[in-house]
């Protein structure tokens, strides 16, 4: 059973690689500019905030919950960073402070889900509105600029001598750490166990509430980090930074093969899916499709990435049961 599942997952990731290849070919045919190193560098740096948010979200969905508040936490973090920067605080205090607020926001989500027993869907829908609202309370409609050069350079600069954007380095380190923890350690096995069967996990001694709360804290912290990177990349702190990101982040996670009902998924799949969405959006942008209209395609991709595997499973099981009936009647 487990070998079968591994083979299926392997196949899912193969599918993603094929999809990525297809979009690359499509992009190349759309614009000669598409297949250039600088375009790839730009595309990657545009993606990294969403990619960083998708990593903890993958763990949360594998554990059977969801976090819709990530984009608002990024906005709140950006607004708060701008606010304390205006107060004249140095960034080496401001950034850890913002990350701590992100952790607190995640803790709030986590406690409402695990201690109060509320569904994460409703809790994070509430904090999606709450954190975005607080962001506009903190900063209002203004945008804060005048950031130090090292900070903005971290946002849209490249590692010296290469075309690798700095945020990609952050993402690569995080992705490697997530991959190791989820697939090679007991923590990862606990997360899978919680998502497969919460009760069984609890009876086998896993502290379900604690693990889930920590995952929400992680999600809040990394969403705040994404907000910091967004601020650096745009050289501007705004309350509406990151608005609408939730679609791409959830799509990347589910397209990456994470089961929406929990218990299944790989970081490699999520990383691949992030780039599938990035290449798709980049290609559409080069084809002069506005970002709002691109959402039609990404929204459809989200639905298909959940409906597709379900349909395949149903067809396969219907087919095998028919074969079973036929072989039984032949006998």
């Amino acid at each position, binding site marked *: 059973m487990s070998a079968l599942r591994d083979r299926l997952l392997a196949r899912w990731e193969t599918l993603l690689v094929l999809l990525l290849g297809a979009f690359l070919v499509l992009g190349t045919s759309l614009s000669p500019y598409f297949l250039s190193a600088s375009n790839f560098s730009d595309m990657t740096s545009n993606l990294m905030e969403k990619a960083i948010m998708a990593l903890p979200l993958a763990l949360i969905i594998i554990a059977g919950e*969801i976090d819709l508040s990530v984009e608002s936490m990024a906005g709140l973090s950006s607004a708060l960073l701008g606010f304390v920067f205006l107060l004249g605080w140095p960034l080496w205090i401001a950034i850890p402070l913002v990350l701590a607020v992100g952790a607190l926001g995640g803790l709030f989500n986590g406690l*409402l889900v695990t201690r*109060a*027993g*509320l*569904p994460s*869907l*409703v*809790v994070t*829908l*509430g*904090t*999606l*509105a*709450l*954190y*975005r*609202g*607080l962001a*506009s*309370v903190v900063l*209002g409609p203004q945008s804060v600029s005048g950031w130090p050069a090292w900070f903005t350079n971290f946002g849209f600069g490249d590692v010296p001598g290469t075309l690798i954007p700095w945020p990609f380095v952050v993402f690569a380190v995080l992705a490697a750490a997530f991959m190791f923890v989820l697939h090679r350690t007991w923590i990862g096995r606990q997360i899978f166990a919680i998502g497969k069967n919460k009760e069984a996990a609890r009876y086998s001694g896993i502290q379900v509430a604690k693990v889930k709360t920590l995952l929400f804290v992680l999600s809040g912290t990394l969403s705040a980090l994404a907000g910091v990177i967004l601020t650096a990349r745009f050289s501007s702190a705004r309350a509406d930074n990151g608005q609408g990101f*939730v*679609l791409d982040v*959830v799509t990347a996670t*589910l397209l990456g093969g994470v089961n*929406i*009902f929990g218990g299944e998924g790989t970081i490699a799949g999520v990383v691949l899916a992030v780039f599938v969405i990035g290449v798709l959006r980049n290609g559409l942008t080069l084809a002069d499709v*506005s970002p*709002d*209209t*691109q*959402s*039609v*395609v*990404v*929204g*459809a991709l*989200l*639905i298909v990435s*959940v*409906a597709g595997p*379900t*349909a395949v499973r*149903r067809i396969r099981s219907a087919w095998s049961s028919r074969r079973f009936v036929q072989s039984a009647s032949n006998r």
Partner: protein
Amino acid sequence: MVRAVEAAVPSNLAGRIGLERTLALVARLRELGIVLALVAIVLVVAIQAPLFFTVSNFEQILLSVALIAIVAVGQTTVVLTRNVDLSVGSVVGLVAFVTGDLLKEHVVGVPVAILAGCVLGLGLGALNGLIITVGRVPAIVATLGTLNIYRGLAFLIAGGKQVSAIDLPNSYLRIASSSVLGVPTLIVCAVVIAAIAAYLLRYSGTGRQLYAIGSNPAAADVVGIPSQRLVFGAFVLCGLLAGVAGVLWGSRFGTVNASAASGLELQVIAAVVIGGVNIFGGSGTVVGAVLGAVLLGTIQNALTVLHLSQFWLQAIDGAVILLAVGTDAAIRNYFQRILTRTGRR
């Protein structure tokens, strides 16, 4: 089959029925609670700002609540079945724009445009329903997808244009500004829709079946309730009512662009959960949801009257969602604990 029925009927039947009765009573008290909260807010704000306590201001509040209330009625039927529709804001926006655009370009007359808007809403709701029931996609994923698809379509159709009040025929704009026996038509529409839905959910067989699906899906299957068809129906109804709200939106505001009514879904969901509709499905009333919408609208209006920053609006939407579901969970847990304790004795 037999084992499934046994599983559906709890061993401590008397205790269970007692619990259900108490929870029903709590739900009724809960509507009273919203009314009391409303009265309290009105009194406090009226003392601070006499301008608040005028007939014209209350009319203003109800006018802004009417559209949200209509959508909240549809959302209630969906939430009762243990689902959620995040796409309602986009449906309202898309329908408002398409209806306005049809009238602006003089493609059709006012009655046909209104009908087209309603049918479009119904179709968008049906697509949601199909993805969820036939495609077996969880409602949250399906409607997060269509939230963006429908909004994207609005941008695609609009292409940067917008519809202004001068482009629209007077007979269309008059729908929102006219009144029936002194009561604004918008409010009449909302009340009639809510009354019909409340009656059907309370007394019709289909209405009761919707509650059954939400409170125990497995038992609903066992007794032969066509769950999938009813969930599909709930989404169709939700889409239709969002379509009606979209048509009225265009009439009320006159100016419609592709981002009209974006974020409305959060206000609608806030209204529904404040109104005591259980987010786990199976309990709650349309009257509660409408009262929830009125409470939310009153708070928003009070902020304006008291000259508090408009930036608080969204934060308040979020806070009341959390407060409402948190309070409900606390009350439910409290009674469950008390009743299971007496049941054991």
